């Protein structure tokens, strides 16, 4: 492709001017990102929070484009899983394409395992085809795509959700033997797990890191831009094989999400810069709560989060606590539940037992039949079993009513 030309054949509509490539006089620079997973929803988000979560992912595209322009990148390379699935909503597709279309830099999208280029591919859907802007191309064919003079993308797209071979290795094998021609840098764009980082003998599609290292050493290729792992990670000794990670975090178990990589691709060695971009946070914490003091600690921990409206918290609460502490815990969680994007508690990770003690009802001055009913419920809790939980709830209710008496 000639400099200044617009994206490959998928591009439609009027060409928009693209900034002249700066690398013409020096090293090609690309912005490596992956795993946008647009259209992703999280079950623990309320509709309002989900809407903001979704919008943040669209906004990230604009931020990526702006960063690429500012850094003088010749291309944004997305290493797969641009969309959460091939069956994403039309609105997601249209908004994503509009966001990319508003940027002055080409985007090259690789189909990953979430959005494989199969018969139901989103990339061949009427919506995508109709609204795809000129600066967006899909790396839908395995092999070399010359996206700029001297810059070849060696694509290894997924054509099914469950490939049965090392697609990246296969794409590299398509290259002519020997080093790349002078003046040409080759960036492999792939998706999936690399065996050196995620050894999995049962995965027929696992990427063989040694072969990549060999090709890098041979200078047949110069950089491997991978997607699939949401945490920013480098693989192997070369320092040229990278997972960019998701630009916005997607789950609690991600180590270092929310970054993109700005890469100066040099034949002799790459300069990779990690740039934080994400605005959302996932935080998971386990708390032992046995009394009001522990609840206060939890409260303080929650209060320490700088942007709770973009933070999703999962709490693993463990402990046995009296009713008054539990009531306080509910107050604290109720308060922060309004502030945070979500506070999630998984039943299987929550082991919180409410054990009423004498102090719970000491100040409530219950007498007569009310006192007797209280004692009955406490005895029920003491017996344990399924009814104990109901009795504990009933005691909590009683505690609330009794405490707020006039």
């Amino acid at each position, binding site marked *: 492709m000639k400099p200044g030309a617009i994206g490959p054949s998928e591009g439609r509509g009027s060409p928009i001017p693209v900034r002249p490539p700066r690398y013409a006089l020096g090293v090609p620079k690309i912005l490596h990102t992956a795993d946008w997973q647009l259209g992703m929803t999280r079950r623990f988000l309320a509709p309002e929070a989900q809407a903001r979560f979704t919008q943040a992912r669209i906004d990230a595209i604009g931020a990526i484009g702006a960063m690429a322009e500012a850094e003088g990148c010749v291309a944004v390379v997305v290493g797969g899983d641009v969309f959460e699935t091939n069956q994403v909503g039309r609105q997601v597709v249209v908004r994503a394409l509009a966001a990319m279309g508003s940027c002055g830099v080409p985007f090259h999208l690789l189909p990953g395992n979430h959005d494989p280029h199969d*018969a*139901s591919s989103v990339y061949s859907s009427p919506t995508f085809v109709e609204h795809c802007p000129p600066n967006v191309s899909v790396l839908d064919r395995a092999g070399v795509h010359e996206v700029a003079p001297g810059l070849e993308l060696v694509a290894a797209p997924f054509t099914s959700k469950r490939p049965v071979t090392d697609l990246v290795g296969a794409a590299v094998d398509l290259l002519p033997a020997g080093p790349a021609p002078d003046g040409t840098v080759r960036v492999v764009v792939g998706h999936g797990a690399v065996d050196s980082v995620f050894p999995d003998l049962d995965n027929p599609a696992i990427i063989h890191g040694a072969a990549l290292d060999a090709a890098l050493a041979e200078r047949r290729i110069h950089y491997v831009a991978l997607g699939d792992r949401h945490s920013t990670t480098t693989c192997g000794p070369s320092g040229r094989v990278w997972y960019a990670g998701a630009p916005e975090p997607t789950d609690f178990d991600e180590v270092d999400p929310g970054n993109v990589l700005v890469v100066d691709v040099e034949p002799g060695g790459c300069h990779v810069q990690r740039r934080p971009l994400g605005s959302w946070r996932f935080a998971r914490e386990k708390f032992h709560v046995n009394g009001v003091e522990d609840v206060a600690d939890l409260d303080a921990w929650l209060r320490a989060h700088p942007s709770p409206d973009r933070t999703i918290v999962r709490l693993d609460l463990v402990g046995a606590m009296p009713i008054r502490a539990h009531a306080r815990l509910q107050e604290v969680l109720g308060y922060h539940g309004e502030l945070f994007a979500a506070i999630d508690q998984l039943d299987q990770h929550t082991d919180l037992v409410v054990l009423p003690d004498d102090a719970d009802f000491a100040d409530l001055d219950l007498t007569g039949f009310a006192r007797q009913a209280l004692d009955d419920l406490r005895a029920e809790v003491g017996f344990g079993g399924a009814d104990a939980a109901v009795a504990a*709830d009933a005691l909590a209710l009683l505690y609330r009513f009794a405490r707020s008496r*006039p």
Partner: protein
Amino acid sequence: MRIHRLRVQSFRGLADAEVTFATTGVTIVEGPNEVGKSSLAEAISLVVDELDTSTKERVRSVRPVHRDEGTEVELELSTGDHHLVIRKRWFRARGIWLEVLAPRREQLTGREAHERLHAILAATADRELWEALRIQQGAEARGASLATRSVLQALDAVAGGTSPDDDDADLWSRITAEWATFFTATGLPRQDGRRLQVEVDEHRSGLARVDADLAQVEAGTDAVGELSRRQARTASAHVEAVARHAELAAEWDGLAGARGEVADRELARTRAEVAVADHRRASEARSALIERVAAASALAEERQGDHRRAVDAGADQARRVVEADQAVALALDQLHEAEAGHSTASAAAEHARRSFDLELLLERHGRVVTNSARLVELHAATPTDLDDDRLAELERLADAAVRARAVLDAGAGSFGAFAIDLVDGVDGVDPGVLLQPEGEPSVPVAAGTRVEHPLTGPVSIVVPGIGTVELTPGAGARDAAREAADAAAALSRALAQVGVADLAEARARRQAGRDAAVELATIDAALRADLRDLTPEVMAAKIAALADQLAAHRAAHPHEVTVALDDADAVVAAAADAVRDARARHAEALAHRAGLAAADEGRVADVARGLAAIDAADRAAAQAAADLERARAEVSDADLATALAEAEASLALAESAALAAASALAAHDPASLEARLQNAADLVARLADEQHEIDLEQARLRAFLSARGEDGLHHQRSELTASLARAERALAHHDRHAAAADLLHRTFSARRDAARLRYLAPFQERICRLGRIVYGPTFEVELDRDLRVRRRTLHGRTLDVADLSVGAREQLDVLTKLAGAATVSAHGGAPVIFDDTLGATSADRLEGMGAAIATAARECQVIVLTCTPERFGSVGRATRITLTPDPVDG
């Protein structure tokens, strides 16, 4: 609480009254209705409840009418350990003053005083009980519940427990309210829970639908992938099949020379076969021609023989025909003879019949003539103007005339005239007395005679020379005379009309008429029977015609023997039988003749056909002989045989050559090669078809996937999953909350009910003790949970309170309140105030009620306000205070 003293000034009708109450025991405040004793109860209420600035109606209503003064109430009371005096003044110089005397002295004014009073009361008194223990004048006897805090506390203390306080009541109501948000009054889950469950179910089914759609998309995607792989395999197989086909086609082409040799030899063999067949056909045709000539000759001979036999048979046939013709002629003669005999017999019979008819006609005609003459006579003799109706009319008129006459004779007077023979006639005139009825001829009364005359009209009795006596009948006699005359005249006119003199003649004439009519009818019937459908004239004409015919017949047949009519028919029948026999014989002869004629015609035709056949057979034989001759002229029989033998030898040679060529080709197995070649071609075609089918299926699936891809199924699934999770959380939360609320409610309810049951017993016992004073030892009551009396038992009979009399209900209410007040008295309690109660209680119960009040009052303060103090006369120990009316407002 105890009320010590109350002073009111300018309060309704009371200008200034002060009452000091006994703090234990009964205080009876008595006074006439208008004195305002009820105002005391009202004043106690106002001074406790209302601010001095209050503008409420209940405050304004106590202002005295004729005095422009402020209304003031001062109440001294003790409650708990407090002893105090509260004074309030309304309307003029308003103010509130509180003086607490114990436990430590306090003096407060204004709102502060009011609020302090209420604070003291809230801390020390049971306001609910205070309200409940007052019986207002005329109020419904079944008052407020006594299940107040202090009563329950007191009862619980008696029952050995610790009673709940106000806060616990509030707690119970909140628990109940919470439970009611989840359950209906009957304990069924409310709509919210069901709605949440429905929501969860809907989300689940929606999710299942989307999952199914997604599975369909995934299956479609996999199918397209599989089709693509199949397409690749098929394309590869197609390429291979095309190559194999080309290979086999080349091999097939290599066998072209051998196949050509086989084809040539086969062609030569076929041609030889054709030549042999041709020669065989020629030989067979020659043989057939020879046979044809022989057959034609034989046939001609046969036809000649046939003809000869036919001619011989024709002579016999002609003879039989002649005989048959003779038989027919004889039969015809016999038939004619029989027909003539029948005709003669028929004519004689007809003649006999006509003679008989003539005789009959002559007899009938004679009777007709006679009867016609008699008929004319009878018609002439029968009167026609006097029928039964007319005779009845005459009878009626005669009867009317007789009755009118009888009336006249009975009703009119009559007189008698007696002429004395004293005077002689003068001038030749009979000097006798003359009666001159008006309009009638005079009737002379001869001297010395007496004439009786009815007085039916004016009559003058003329005594010539002496005078005239004029007699005039009364109006009745005149009318009767006129009616009698009219009736007689009517009868005369009627008789005259029918031409008889009197009624007897009329009757005789009517009888003669009836007799003539009977005879007339008889003769008419006979005449009609004889005439039938003829007239006498026609009958006469028929007689004449018949006579002529008979005469003519006799003239024509002068020798004919006349036969009797009875024999004639038998003769005719015998003649007819003879004719029928003759006709049958003739027909038989004709038929026989016709049969012979037909046979003869056939024979003649056969002869003709035989001649024609002889001719045809001769021609055919000649033709066949000519054809054979011509054929032999062309090719002789010997040449034909030689040619056939040569052709058969050539065929044998061709067959062996073809066999040899075929064997040579078979050595290369061309059939198998051809089968393989055809199979290869079929395989190429089938694989091409398969590729096309795969293309079509792929196109269909891609179209489906493209359409479904636009549905945003993942988005739908995500939203549904999130909605389902929310709905499930809401349902779980709801269920958990409901279970907790239910358990809390059940636990509290059980304990509360148990506590209530414990409270009931001592309170019930206290009411019973008081009641037995009034009703005796059989008195029992049953309470509800609000400590109201629900049922009363007396002398073993239990009744609902609603079924008791007004008086009994009133007494139970008083007893209940006394029991309540007595129950709590140890803890302060409140005074019982009765405002004119027991109005419906009978005198025999009043004594017992007085004793019960006095008994209860040993433990509590009882204040009775009444205008009929005698109701409470039986209260043994009581402080009595009499109020007197105000001189101005009283």
